[in-house]
Every structure is written in C-alpha cells, then in structure tokens.
C-alpha cells in the first residue's frame, strides 16, 4: 500500500511540474500563433480580392448546391464607401487524398475574382501544382491553374478539359477544385442577388 502511494506521489509531482511548464510555454506562444493565423488569413483574403477593400465576417450559413462541397467562414468584401463588392467563402472540397481547403472570392456581378488554396495534401509534382505559382496551364499567357478562374462566370460548367484547363496528370485534383469554386460561386452569387441593394 505504502509503495503504491509513493509511486502515485512521484508520478503526480512530475506530471504537475510538466503541466506547469507547458502552461507557461503555451501562454507565451499562444498570442504569437494567433497573430500569425490572423496575418495569414488577412493575406489570403487580400490574395483573392486584391485592392483597397474592407473584409468582415458574415454570420450566415449558405447552403452548398454541391453535396460534396462544404462552406466554412464567409466574408463580405466592401469598398471604401461601404458598397458590397463581393464575397469570399472558405470552401472545403474532397481532393485526391484529403479534403482541399481554399478561399474563393466571388464578384457581385457573378464572376470569380480569385481562388487560393489554404490546405491540401495532393501529390507533389502532380496535384500539388494546383497551388504552385510557377506552374502554368497556359504557358504562353502565363496563366496558373487557379489564375484561369479569374473573371469566369459562375454559371459556366466548370468541367476540366472542357472550359477548365486541367493540370497534367491530376484530373481528380483539377475537378475537385473546379467543383468547389463553382459551388461557392453559385451560392455566393445567389445570396448577393437576394441581398440586393444593400
């Protein structure tokens, strides 16, 4: 009995010290991590909507027209005088190996403004080229895979090898990204049309 108590006390004391140290390190790093996340988010939003815009989170839920695609946070984009310019959706679409998370910026007039991939686990050298800024699907015009969505109407079919140029050897990734962008585009466009004058 005595022995068990002793063992428990020793393990308890060591665990308590370890817990205390961890709490200290967490206190110290948590604000840095939070600041990094905020900065990364701001940079991401600016990438899909470059310019002098104001971003604010919209507390609404949009229904995705594509059952495989889900939406996370939704942001509205306003110009300096407060007019609604467009929306940005955090979109998750099923990738080749794991879900792809991306930001999709939609203009008020129903065109895509920009797409940025936040998280993906696609095959290096193939599907991962989706987010490679030096991989051009159109080498002459220097258009990247994501770049080709800029200005595209949300009512377009978004089918790789038809109106979307696919990444060589990565048809699944190309299709996954395309359907995610299309779903986000349609949902955001419908919402903005309903919201009307605001």
């Amino acid at each position: 009995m005595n022995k068990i108590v002793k063992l428990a006390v020793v393990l308890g004391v060591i665990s308590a010290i370890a817990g205390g140290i961890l709490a200290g390190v967490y206190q110290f790093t948590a604000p840095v991590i939070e600041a990094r996340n905020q900065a990364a988010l701001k940079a991401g939003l600016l990438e899909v909507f470059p310019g002098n815009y104001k971003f604010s989170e919209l507390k609404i839920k949009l229904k995705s027209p594509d059952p495989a695609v889900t939406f996370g946070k939704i942001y509205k984009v306003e110009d300096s005088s407060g007019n609604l310019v467009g929306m940005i959706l955090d979109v998750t679409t099923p990738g080749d190996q794991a879900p792809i998370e991306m930001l999709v910026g939609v203009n008020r007039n129903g065109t895509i403004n920009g797409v940025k991939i936040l998280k993906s686990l696609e095959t290096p050298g193939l599907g991962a080229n989706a987010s490679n800024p030096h991989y051009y699907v159109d080498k002459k015009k220097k258009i990247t895979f994501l770049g080709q969505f800029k200005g595209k109407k949300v009512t377009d079919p978004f089918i790789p090898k038809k109106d979307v140029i696919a990444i060589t050897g990565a048809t699944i990734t190309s299709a996954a990204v395309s359907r995610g962008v299309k779903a986000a585009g349609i949902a955001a466009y419908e919402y903005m049309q309903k919201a009307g004058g605001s």
Partner: protein
Amino acid sequence: MKDKLKIIWNGIVPSNPVLILAIGLCSVVAVTNFVKNALLMSFAFSFVLILSEVIVSSIRKWIPDEIRVPIFVVVIATFTTIAALLSHAYFPSVYDAIKLYILLVVVNCIIIGRAEAFAYKNGVFDSLLDGIGMSLGYSWVIITIAIIRELFGNGTIANIRVMPHIYQPALIMVLPPAGFLVLGVLVGWLEWSLKRKKEAKK
C-alpha cells in the same frame, strides 16, 4: 576527455540511430522529401532528445523502477509539446507540412530507447553528450537523405534550384517509396565502408 568524445562519436557513426540501430524509421521516410522539412525535424528531434536525456538522468535517483517508463513518457511528451508550440509559432508553413511527425516524436523509439538505455544509467554530463551525439547522428542522416531526394525529385536543394530547368524531376523521389530506397542505399554504403575499414586494419 577521449572517452567523452567517444560518447558523441558513438551516436554519429558506430551506433547511429537510423543507419545502424535502425529505429524510428517511419518519420525518417516521411520527413525527408524536402530539406526544409528535414531541418525542422532535426531541430525538434534534437531539442526533445537532448533535454529529455538531461532531465531523465538528473532525476534518475528519484525515479522508482516500476514507473520509469510513464515518467520518461511524461518528460518526453512535455518537450515534444514545447517543440511543437515553438515550431507552430515561428515556422508556421513548415510546421503545417510535418506537424504530425513532430507530434509523433513523443513515441519515437530512439528517444525513449536512449532515455531507458543511457540516461537512466548515466550521469547528467554523459547523457548530454549522448543526446548531442545521437542528435547529430540522426540529423546528418535525414538531411543527407533529404538533399538526395529533393535534388532528384524536385531539382532543388532547400528550395534553391540546382538542376537546370530542362531537367525533368523524377517524382518518385519525393514520394514515400524513395525514402526507403535512399535509406537502404545509405545503410548499405555505411556497412560496406565500415567493413572495408575493418579489413584494412587486419
């Protein structure tokens, strides 16, 4: 002095954790596709191993034999979590790529093995040296593998383009199978050169 140096050298070649002891190989294969991943993993691994060995050896007289393994795990888990928090705060993009493997340092058999086999039986200073030696041994191997894999698989070393643009990267080199291939070749090469040295002495 000489036997102290020998403790360090022991981890670098004669008991190299990866090439000779061949333990903890899963993370070796996983993180060596790009040099920057291997570098961050080396730092995290060294941090956890050296500090865990020092702490374990300094409290070894108070550790009851029956619960030594849980205590090793608590110590190692503490340092692993600290390493993960620091990497998340200061190297966010690399951390995102390999965070699973940094967290898995907790159950890396090299670390718990050295805590049990060395730090639990030796003094603080010797354990520090053993930690340094083992870390160097682990780091040089995974960084070498990463350089080979990134060079042939992506045409770059640490994201700096080395191969001419005309070089068509061999994708398999950055995919997991090549981890085994390069590791196997290195193990063979080291065994071969050690054997040759032994024979030359005769």
